[in-house]
Structures are given as structure tokens and as C-alpha cells.
């Protein structure tokens, strides 16, 4: 479980996040949603420790991340798997080497064991016979899947996905969403997905946090989302034509 308490973040004189409080539950797909520029990615970066918040704390299983020493932080980070918006695969490494990378850095395994584990992870995300290809030779969807394979290579306790569907067609987006949901159930990870894709929210969101103007505006389940009377949330949720039609059909 990850808990965020009173987190605030400034860049120069611009206050990006203000007093964010949230609990991200284990074994669930927790989603942070909001418009572009609302501060959701900054919040995610504060949670994983890429940004240090000026106010508040982030707790991993009750321990304050920002109060940990360097080694303790590294220990927590080794339990984090992250899928980046642009996949962030290492250009100079092949698909197999990318997935093996965290094991090479931290695991005491023989090379053959690492390869077996990497193959298992790649198979899990339906990437077969692409071991020797380089990231530039893969489609966007495949890169995302390799990114997921790398993220799960070390059996993470926490899985972060930053805009996993950006730049993907609707069908591939569904594949990625399903994979994230399946992996969360299978590995019992505390999964945090940053997204503004309402399809994804309606497909997989179990604990949804809406960030607006750097503040937590709303929190609830996807069932509660549709019936919410929160104006800003409704504006965001029903911004797409598809969602407007769904709203009409439901008589909301």
C-alpha cells in the first residue's frame, strides 16, 4: 500500500500540487486522472521519488520514502516497476537485454536463469520471437509491452504506468489495459496508472483519483464516477463524444 499525505510541490514560484492526500491500495488498479497540466504526472514522480515534494510525505507500507537514506530508497525502488509514457527502453540494448537489465543489475542469477525469466516475462506480454530486435524496430504497442515485461521482471510490489495508452490505437490500448489489470491481479501489485484516457478508466479503474489544478478534486470507484455531481469531474469525464453518448444512453 502507498499513502500520500499532504503532498505539495512547487517549481519556482508555480505551485503545481497542493495538499494531496490519497491511499493507493494493494492488488488494485489505482488511477490518477486529470487534464493535461493538472499535475498528475508530477504527483506520480513525487510518489516514485523522482521529485522531492516541498510539503507532505509519501509512505510505502508505512515508511516515509523521503526520510529514508539512500540505500533504503534503492531497496524500495527495486520493488517498483514502471512503464513510461515513451516506454523508456534502452536504445542500445535488444529486447531481451532490456528485460534482463534489472536482473543483471540486482539479481544473483546465472545468465541462463536471467534469460529464462526474461523469456517468461516477454511471453507473458505476448512478445515472442522478438528477442534480438532493438526498440527502434518495434511498434509503439510492442514497445509498451516490452516496457511492461521489463517492469515485471523483478516481481515488483508496486507498478507505475505513466499514460500507458498515449500514442496507441484503441485496440492496442485495450490490450495494454487488460495486461495491466491481469498483472495487477496476478502479482498482487499496488498499481498506479496515470491517464486521461476515459476508456482505460472505465475498463480497469478500481480506485480513481481526479486531480484538478494541482488538487485532489475527487476520489471514488468507476461506478461512482458516472453518477458524480462534481462539475469539474463531469466536464473531464464527458469531454469525449463517446462518453457523452454513453451518458445520454444511461439517462444521466
Amino acid at each position, binding site marked *: 500500500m502507498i499513502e500520500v499525505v499532504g503532498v505539495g510541490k512547487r517549481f519556482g514560484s508555480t505551485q503545481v500540487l497542493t495538499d494531496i492526500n490519497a491511499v493507493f491500495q494493494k492488488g488494485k488498479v489505482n488511477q490518477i486522472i486529470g487534464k493535461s497540466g493538472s499535475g498528475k504526472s508530477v504527483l506520480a514522480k513525487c510518489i516514485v*521519488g523522482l521529485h522531492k515534494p516541498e510539503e507532505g510525505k509519501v509512505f510505502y507500507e508505512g515508511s516515509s520514502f523521503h526520510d529514508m537514506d539512500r540505500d533504503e530508497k534503492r531497496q524500495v525502488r527495486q520493488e517498483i516497476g514502471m512503464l513510461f509514457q515513451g516506454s*523508456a527502453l534502452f536504445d542500445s540494448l535488444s529486447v531481451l537485454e532490456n528485460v534482463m537489465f534489472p536482473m543483471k543489475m*540486482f539479481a544473483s542469477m546465472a545468465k541462463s536463469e536471467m534469460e529464462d525469466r526474461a523469456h517468461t516475462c516477454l511471453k507473458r506480454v505476448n512478445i515472442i520471437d522478438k528477442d534480438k530486435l532493438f526498440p527502434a524496430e518495434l511498434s509503439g504497442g510492442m514497445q509498451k509491452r516490452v516496457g511492461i515485461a521489463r517492469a515485471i521482471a523483478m516481481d515488483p510490489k508496486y507498478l507505475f504506468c505513466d499514460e500507458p495508452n498515449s500514442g496507441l490505437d484503441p485496440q492496442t490500448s485495450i490490450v495494454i489495459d487488460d495486461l495491466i489489470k491481469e498483472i495487477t491481479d496476478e502479482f498482487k501489485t499496488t498499481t498506479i496508472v496515470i491517464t486521461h484516457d476515459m476508456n482505460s478508466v472505465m475498463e480497469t479503474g478500481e480506485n480513481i483519483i481526479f486531480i484538478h489544478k494541482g488538487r485532489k478534486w475527487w476520489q471514488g470507484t468507476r461506478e461512482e464516477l458516472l453518477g458524480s455531481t462534481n462539475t469539474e469531474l463531469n466536464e473531464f469525464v464527458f469531454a469525449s463524444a463517446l462518453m457523452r453518448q454513453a451518458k445520454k444512453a444511461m439517462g444521466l
Partner: protein
Amino acid sequence: MKVLFHIGRYFLLLRDTFSRPEKRRLYWQRTLEEMDLLGVQSLGIVALLSFFMGAVITIQTKTNIDSPLIQGWVVGFATRQSTILEFSPTIISLILAGKVGSNIAAEIGSMRVKEQIDALDIMGVNSAGYLILPKILGTMLFNPFLIMFSMFLSIFGGYLAGVGTGIVSTEDYLQGIQMNFNTYHVTYALIKTVVFAFIIATVSAYQGYYTVGGTREVGISSTLAVVYSNVVILIVNYALTQLLLI
């Protein structure tokens, strides 16, 4: 104030770079890769430059001291001294700052803007150590060989140009390059080389590591890496000369 900020951040980056590596074997493997990329692959340009610079030094020395009062060996002597003391360690290092420095800044800068450095950090890898330390070790270990190679080729280029054009005899040139040879000058040149290699790797890595933005900013970081490396090399060159030669 901005200069102080950058100096402070540079030293903090160095602290992270030299902190305990996760797996020494992996770092050593990466060091060998960097020696190949940054060192071995610079052999061509170093050879070309050294050979022709040596030739030009010989011809220019001869044309500028063409007096019956000056003995023939002076041309070889001047070529050797210019090459060992300044041309090979300093000028070649400045050129390497352009080739190797821009390579380092562009590679690390691209990794930064593509979130690959964030990926390393989130995995718990010391990204500064993993990316920068092998480059520092690679350049510091290999550049002395490059510079020795440059010294040899420059003096050889001078010989071919001098003897080939007939402005100096083989005997005079060989006598000149052996005249009053002080091995400390080679030590001094190699000390400078190692210090300059450290400057090239760290200043360029600093520029790349803190790149913010996109491809345009990677280009800017690359340019700044070359400019700042050159400026620092020139200042340190003066300081080292004062310290080690006087």
C-alpha cells in the same frame, strides 16, 4: 550565482558518480565498451591530425629560423618539444573534447529526454555512476595511449615532411629529436592528458545529465559540453604548466 549553482551541482553529480557501484563487473564491462567507443574510435582522427600537424610544425619551424647561425638539429628539437609539451596533450585533448565530449553529452542528454535516466533511477540503479563512471575511467585510461600515439605520429610526420622536402637531413632531425631529452616532459604531458580526460568526460556528462527539454536542448547541451570543456581545459592547462614546469 548561476555559476556557483552549476559548480555545486557538478560536484554533487561527481559524488553520486563515485558512489558504490551496484555490480563492479558490469561497470568494468561498460568501461571497456567506453574505451572502444571513446578511445579506439578516435584513433583515426588523432592519427590524421597528429601526422599533418607534425609536418606543419617542422616546415614552419624551418622557414622561421632559416639562418646560418642556427644549427640543423633545432628543427627536430622544436618539433619534439612542441609536440610533447603542448600539441599532443593539449591540442589533441581540445579536439577530443569536440569529438568525445559532444558524443557523451548527446548520448546522456538523449537518455535524459527519453526518460531512460528516470527509468534507471526508478529501478534503483545509481544512474550517474552507471552512465558516467565508465566514461570517466574509459577516457582516463585510454587517452594517455592516444596521446603517446599522437606524439609518435607527429614527430614521424615532421620527419617525413622535413626529409621529404629536403629542408632538413635525416641526421639533423634524428639528432634534434634526441637532443637534451627530458623524460619528465613526457610525464608532464601524460599528467595533463589524464586531467584533461577527466574534464572532458565529467563536464560533458554534466551537460548531458541535466538536459531539460527535447532534441533541440540535446543539441545545445552538446555544444555547451564542447565549449565548457575547452574553456576548463585551457584554464587548467595554464595552472598545470605553472605547477609542474616552473
